[in-house]
């Protein structure tokens, strides 16, 4: 999934979690991503040692497709081991023990080249602060959204996404000749952490953001399975924040508004 979202991404390893990070640099077009896994949900053995005791973290940059391909061979594996090694250059070595018809097992080893990210760049890779959203709404079936956006992409590059607290979400595109809107209803909104009085907010009022449709599409294309939970937070005219939970993996994706 990550491989479809980002060609190169950062893997951050801390004692209890793994994070795949894409920071909002210009090269990424302003989108950023934060994906988190609790390591104990995946690994039976986990040992790491960061730079120092206070900074017990490791940041690596790798090509996500390499890792994705390496892990693909592990689909029917008996065991999988991932290690940080240094063979001519720093690598993430993924070793997979495959089941075999005969008694001896087969071992596949992948050495994925990585770049260690120096500590001074760590501050760019921290968990993004989620700004207080104007509207928070549950997403419709992602596959439906994707097919709608795919067709809209042929008409215009500029998409407006808007939602309100009444469970309604609209996606609009507009050109000189045509204006297309897709309406999703009854989506449901998560309960608001209402410090500011939500009473004086009209639930019908839409909060909208103008996006580059290709960025939205890239995000949707990367989603293959239906997530357990999918939330969309809109900060009016600033950005869209997608918060998904796929079983044990949490993914957050930020798309900035078109300026």
């Amino acid at each position, binding site marked *: 999934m990550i491989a479809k979202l980002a060609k190169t991404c950062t893997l951050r390893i801390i004692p209890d979690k793994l994070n795949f990070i894409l920071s909002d640099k210009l090269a990424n077009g302003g989108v950023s991503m934060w994906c988190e896994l609790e390591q104990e949900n995946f690994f039976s*053995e986990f*040992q*790491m*040692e960061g*730079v120092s005791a206070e900074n017990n973290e*490791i*940041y690596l940059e790798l*090509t996500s497709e*390499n890792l994705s*391909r*390496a892990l693909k*061979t592990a689909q029917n594996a008996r065991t999988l*081991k991932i*290690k*940080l*090694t*240094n*063979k*001519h*250059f*720093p*690598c993430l070595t993924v*070793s997979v*023990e495959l089941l*075999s*018809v*005969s*008694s*001896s*097992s*087969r*071992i*596949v*080893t*992948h*050495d*994925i*080249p990585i770049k*260690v*990210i*120096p*500590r*001074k760049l760590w501050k760019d890779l921290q968990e993004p602060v989620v700004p207080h959203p104007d509207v928070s709404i549950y997403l419709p079936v992602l596959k439906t959204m994707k097919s709608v956006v795919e067709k809209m992409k042929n008409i215009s590059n500029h998409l407006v996404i808007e939602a309100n607290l009444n469970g309604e979400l609209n996606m609009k595109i507009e050109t000189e000749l045509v204006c297309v809107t897709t309406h999703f209803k009854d989506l449901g909104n998560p309960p608001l952490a209402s410090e500011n009085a939500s009473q004086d907010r009209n639930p019908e009022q839409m909060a909208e953001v103008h996006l580059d449709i290709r960025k939205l599409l890239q995000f949707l294309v990367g989603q293959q399975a239906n997530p357990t939970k999918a939330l969309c937070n809109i900060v009016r005219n600033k950005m869209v924040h997608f918060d998904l939970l796929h079983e044990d993996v949490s993914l957050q994706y930020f798309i900035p508004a078109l300026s």
Partner: protein
Amino acid sequence: MKCLVMGGNVKVLGKAVHSLSRIGDELYLEPLEDGLSLRTVNSSRSAYACFVFAPLFFQQYQAASPGQDLLRCKILMKSFLSVFRSLAMLERTVEKCCISLNSRNSRLVVQLHCKYGVRKTHNLSFQDCESLQAVFDPASCPHMLHAPARVLGEAVLPFPPALAEVTLGIGHGHRVILRSYQEEEADSTVKTMMTEMSIGEEDFQQLQAQEGVAVTFCLKEFRGLLSFAESANLNLSIHFDAPGRPAIFTIKDSLLDAHFVLATLSETDPHSKDLGSPEPAPQLQDYSTPHLDDFANDDIDSYMIAMETTTGGESSRALPSVSLSPGPQPSHSPDPHSEEEDEAEPSTVPGTPPPKKFRSLFFGSILAPVHSPQGPSPVLAEDSEGEG
């Protein structure tokens, strides 16, 4: 020449043509007394493929009309392949296929008799040619392995489809190792992923090779034969020798024989210079042993790397690299052109060296003068100048 292929064999023939199309652009068709041979060679003469279909494969097989000489012809691979392009269609609709060579009108006629009375006739023009025959002898190769195609198919699965070359060797514990081969460039900043597959010898029906031997050949060309063998569910034999000497891949069946002869790389691995004195024998053990030992006695602490963030970090153990130095005897390089084939391949191949490196390889290794190859004496493709 006239022959008739029935039913399911049409698809087999089609698959064979697909395999051959991965090697060369011209198909040499020669009806022999012991069968119909389809041969091809690639442009750099570093790969040769040959399928011979026994008379039993055909419903009817007539090598030559009585009183006529055996004809040989050379056709464009593209044309012949277009007849058999859609294997699914061949399977579903074609009932029989008739191939005849008519010297009178200089056409190779391929007629597909399909369902519902549909008949497709292809008239392909051909050229007279000399007989294409590579000189090779599997029996002269000291190393051999024999396995069902399925095992080898599974073995190449983890490798990326774009990978050009792979190294096959025997490692520690008599395991067969397949490793992705990358041309090392001194100035390359883009490091590519390395994949290695290790299979126990029990998966092979026959394994006759010592630990430490290894050869590197073109994976893409091998895949051509492999896909044919897998679909026909046959066993494959690989005969190989020292690096630089061709590797021979064969399939034997009662109805057909296939031979693929691929050149192997003969130059020493660039990293061998790091080892100081170049070793005389290929050191496959060096890199395979640590891998396997890693996971046998897994002392995690010793592999922890406390990475210094400013520098590349210190390694727990510097693993010696493989050195594929030529064998003790001066290796005839049948493939002064073998590296050239990399160039001919699309630029998506990772690690394709820049052209200038190729030229220097023709005249000697740029790396280890001690083991400078070998004049370009091709063992491959001794074309006999035919009278025709």
